[in-house]
């Protein structure tokens, strides 16, 4: 078992013929993901890698292949439209990898997706992987291994780091989810925690947060009130100078809400194990799996 995707998930790739889209489509296919269709306007009728049919629109792709999940690699100015197209086409799960989507676009996209009861992961996220079954996005497959730890993170490469450590220590994962660091995204920590709580295979959860916002504090409250499974957390940006932007928009310290200290305190108050270094996840998770 897993969350959001499994070996039966049928994926349509929006932007399949672009630089990133084609590279990662191949990687997904190699990993075993069921990539059933691609979309590039004007290339309808072609085949990607002599095997995956390409369509002009997502609607055409869904109609022809029954795809139920979309992954988006289109450039930022077109990402909002691509998400809405996917949501309107009938897929139930959309993963938007694109980085640099204007936040105001997301204020419009978010209610569009919500109204249709569709789950959006991202934008500006690495996607997710259910080891051994399917990966949708760009998380390197070889760093993961099947097991019973759920991983959820606001950061891309930091997720890889932690998953890599877990795998090296022989701790496998049910699903690893990168929710992305943008101020407005489709899926938050709580959505993933709730899904992991429900997933019978997941026995513990590793959660990586960042400075900025209050998502981690709300996640901590959720863990305290609704979760029976152990959670271990980490906050990146403990040494970041206050008030400076650290890369993506997720990392603005605004007022008193959003410092690493506050978030760590919220974790501790909720009984979440706190990793001081990314590598500390290994021991903390191990102790909780016993």
């Amino acid at each position, binding site marked *: 078992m897993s969350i959001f995707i499994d070996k039966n998930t049928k994926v349509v790739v929006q932007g399949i013929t672009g630089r990133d889209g084609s590279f990662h489509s191949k990687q997904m296919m190699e990993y075993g993901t069921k990539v059933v269709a691609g979309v590039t306007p004007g290339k309808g009728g072609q085949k990607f890698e002599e095997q995956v049919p390409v369509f002009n629109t997502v609607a055409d792709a869904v109609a022809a292949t029954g795809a139920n999940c979309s992954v988006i690699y289109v450039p930022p100015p077109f990402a909002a439209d691509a998400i809405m197209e996917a949501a309107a086409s009938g897929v139930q799960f959309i993963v938007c990898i694109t980085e640099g989507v*204007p936040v105001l676009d997301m204020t419009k996209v978010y209610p569009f997706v919500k109204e249709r009861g569709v789950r959006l992961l991202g934008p500006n996220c690495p996607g997710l992987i259910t080891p051994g079954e399917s990966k949708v996005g760009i998380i390197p497959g070889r760093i993961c291994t099947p097991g019973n730890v759920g991983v959820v993170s606001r*950061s891309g490469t930091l997720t890889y780091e932690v998953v890599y450590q877990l795998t090296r220590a022989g701790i496998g994962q049910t699903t690893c989810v990168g929710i992305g660091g943008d*101020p407005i995204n489709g899926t938050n920590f709580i959505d993933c925690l709730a899904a992991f709580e429900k997933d019978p295979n997941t026995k513990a959860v590793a959660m990586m947060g960042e400075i900025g916002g209050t998502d981690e504090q709300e996640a901590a409250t959720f863990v305290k009130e609704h979760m029976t499974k152990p959670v271990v957390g980490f906050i990146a940006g403990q040494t970041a*100078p206050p008030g400076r932007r650290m*890369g993506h928009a997720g990392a603005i310290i605004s007022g008193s809400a959003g410092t690493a200290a506050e978030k760590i305190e919220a974790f501790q108050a909720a009984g979440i194990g706190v990793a001081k270094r990314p590598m500390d996840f290994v021991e903390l998770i191990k102790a909780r799996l016993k």
Partner: protein
Amino acid sequence: MNIHEYQAKEIIRGFGVPIPPGEIATTPEQAETIAKKYGTAVMVKAQVHAGGRGKAGGVKFCKTATDAKEKATAILGMQIKGLTVEKVLVTVAADIGSEAYVGIIVDRATKKPVFMVSAAGGIDIEQVAAETPDKILYVPVDVRYGLPMYDAMRMGFFLYSDLKLVRAAAKIMQQLYAAFMASGCSLAEINPLVVTPTGEMLAVDGKMVIDDNELDRLPNIAALRDESSEAPSEVAARHANLTFIKLDGDVGCVVNGAGLAMATMDLVKYYGGDPANFLDIGGSSNPEKVVNALKIITADPNVKAILFNIFGGITRTDDVANGIVTATKANPLKVPIVIRLTGTNEEIAMKILTENGFTASSDMDEAVQKAVALAKGGKAA
């Protein structure tokens, strides 16, 4: 992206918000000429991307044109929070009857632009929020519908009781909202929104922060960037599509991804070191990016060791390896370098590095410890 007060006010004026007349001066003489032209008391206001200009002495009331020249002399060239004042705004001083605060930010929790309005204007809104939260009305806006008149009126009634002022304020809310949306803002503020003793409403100070992701599609807004008011290293990084923030330490960090970059800095601190910077080369890297990153980092004389921490996903580690090779061939390094690479195309990357005389590990903890030790003048462990 930050823009100056005078730029923000010019934008909102374009949407109909009334502002006092004003012009930019870069010399005291210009300030005098402008003040003379208005023939009335003026404010001379430092145009820098920093809060607390008033407290720092960067905003002065001037009764006469001579006065304006003197004050401009004092303010031009002044340092405010490490930034040099290159320009002042010379603007007609408004008679102030009352001062209100009106701001819009994009709120993560509601996922909407949210208005914050308060009759306690003229001061820092964060202070009002902390001390007297009841004095702020928050009004989220559903962008699908825009700002409805009833919400604009509600804010007007929160600030004023005279219907004429309520309507004037409601109109300004709608104009500010239109400016906010059209300019790709993450923040827009009027502080203070002044009512003069004769009942005129004026935006006396304005501020806007633009979402960097909007700049490609808003060339007119992008053109407002004033690079003379930014740190040169950050300008260079932006030109190279890197996110760079200079810090005070000696371990130069080159990382892909903001989260991992912060975690790397945290780990440098954890092992007793001090990061010299935050630098995120982002996804979809190419060798050129790495070359530029190294240029920026090696330009900092404080840097005693360079730490690469790359975990390839969308970033291909072979691109990074090629970048390191190219950059160091052109400009041999004067400080030690520690390279940690893993993920996408790791084998190719390792091969490239080895063939060019570099050693690289795939362990983050080990690499950070090594870089900290090297920065301290020690050998690699």
